[in-house]
């Protein structure tokens, strides 16, 4: 758990650092990293258990909380869509500015 905490802490620190940057592409990268960090955070909120997958089987006793994975699965897709949209906006804006000059 502390290893995961360290990893997600580092990820979110990097994300915020990139978000505050002046480069536009770094801001997009920071946004993507932040969405990964938040997804990992939500996933870890369901408590990480070993040998407790949320899939029914007769031999299994303990189950993990199925809600955080379901939430995160939705959030990942939205995060990807958002990153792609911002990236497209950036490309479009760069080309448009070049053409108007």
């Amino acid at each position, binding site marked *: *758990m*502390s290893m*995961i*905490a*360290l990893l*997600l*802490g*580092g*990820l*979110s*620190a*990097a*994300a*915020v*650092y990139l978000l*505050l940057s002046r480069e*536009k*592409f770094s801001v997009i990268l920071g946004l993507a990293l932040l969405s990964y*960090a938040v997804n990992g*955070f939500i996933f*870890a*909120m369901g*408590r990480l258990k070993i040998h407790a997958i*949320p*899939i*029914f*089987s007769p031999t299994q006793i303990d*189950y993990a*909380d*199925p*809600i955080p*994975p*379901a939430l995160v*699965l*939705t959030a990942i*897709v*939205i995060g990807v*869509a*958002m990153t*792609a*949209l911002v*990236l*497209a*906006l950036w*490309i*479009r804006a*760069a*080309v448009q*500015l*070049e*053409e108007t000059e």
Partner: protein
Amino acid sequence: MGLALSVGVTVAGILCLLPSDFSNDVARYYMANSLEGGGGHNMVNVIIVDFRGFDTFIEMTVFALTGLILLGFLASPPASGVAIRKPLRSILTQTWAGVMSFSLLLGAIFLLLRGHDAPGGGFIAGLVVVLAYAVQYLAVSLPHRVTLALDGLLALGFMLALITGLCAVVMGAGFLTSTHYRLHLAWLGDIELASAALFDLGVFFVVVAVGRIFLLRFAAWQRVNLTQLTAGREE
């Protein structure tokens, strides 16, 4: 820098200080009901396509809209631009790309079919199909060969999910209410059929179509040397 570090330390601190023993009523409800109510062994998949089916439907709409917006935004790459990468021509890569993408497609079908009972499902299967496209693209530079012939897939997947949801309304239940029954076949044994699996198939088509749009649109625009463009502006 200081702000970023403090955010990181806060996140890590919260995660370290979580009490490890935790169970809640909502999780217990899903655990008790997903086998009888949703007809699937995979609780996460049952939540996504069945209990919270409406959320997934809206999410699919967001994803499909992003694909459509990208189609409009990145419609035609400007003719002037520096080509960054020449298409790779290697017989070894092309042969292996064929084998790889074929096995990836098979794996995607496998993941799609087992999604309700084991790890898998529409989203991950869709992403695996997009991966097969990516492999093909790396080997034979796909965007110049395949045009927009497959983008009706987006509409098809969306309509499939919508019609699955509306069937439940026609039969007198709420939107996206799912049903399932156990089918007994002679040699294959018991097969659990769930209407939520059809919804999952719709999600699969949408993810394939939108992922393909992302891949091909960004690939078509990679000829534009953006770093040069923006560097020229900011100086």
